[in-house]
């Protein structure tokens, strides 16, 4: 049984495209949300309570939300980073 003529026509048409070119390249395309997964090694954690300035916590919450999407770092990872900076400032290894 022979191949329908239109299959050759479609194959020829498709073969003229290059890369991500489609039949209608100007049409809006689906943009997928990029999810980043933190590659930070797992660390054993414990709870520690602080009384913190309310305004700082509000800023911190916004920072966590931004970094979750940008770098994949979550709240605990950012607290680790803040503590490391503190140790560096006060020269504690």
């Amino acid at each position: 049984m022979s191949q329908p003529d239109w299959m050759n026509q479609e194959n020829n048409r498709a073969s003229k495209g290059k890369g991500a070119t489609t039949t209608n390249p100007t049409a809006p395309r689906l943009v997928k949300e990029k999810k980043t997964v933190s590659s930070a090694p797992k660390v054993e954690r414990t709870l520690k309570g602080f009384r913190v300035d309310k305004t700082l916590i509000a800023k911190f919450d916004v920072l966590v939300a931004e970094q979750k999407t940008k770098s994949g770092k979550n709240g605990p990872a950012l607290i680790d980073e803040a503590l490391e900076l503190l140790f560096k400032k006060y020269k504690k290894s």
Partner: protein
Amino acid sequence: MVSIWNPKGGQGKSMISINLAAAAVELGLKPLVICQDPQGTSTLFYNSHNLPFKVVSEIPDQAPDADLVIFDHQASDWELPPCELVLMPTKPERSQYATFADAKRMADEAGKTVIPVVTDGNMQRKNEKETVLALRQQGAFEIRSSVAFSRAADDYRTIFDPELNRVNNIKDRRREVEAVLSAVLQGVNNKEKQDHVAA
């Protein structure tokens, strides 16, 4: 890992994903379906509690405990899938095939291993039969149009569910899905061998 991908909707991506996983269970494998489609068709099947395998909606951040990971991609997704092995279903009609041809060309250019599958072909229709046979000659697998799939979908089951054992021609449809699975497993094995040699 295998991606089930075709930017055209309605070609059978979710149907293949869940039935391929069910066929893998029959072989004693542990498959995992990752539903990447906001319509959540595979997830709907999973939520019915009739599937003998897991469907998750997000990519796990740690390697999952599974022998075969199946990505069920969404329609309108023109971004090439991450897996080296890409299973591409298409219906045997010209406008459906046109999108398949464009997407397959992209996958071929990127060096992906493509497994073409012609779905929902009705061999009573001369033009569809011609197309199905031509695609098969070119190496495509076939999963024919059948009441088995709509009967299975009525209760969110796969065609491998024992409840469907008495459906007409069910054994033929199961054999077709099993043939696709064997090609997928062969592709996965080849990729593992290549990675092993490269290492």
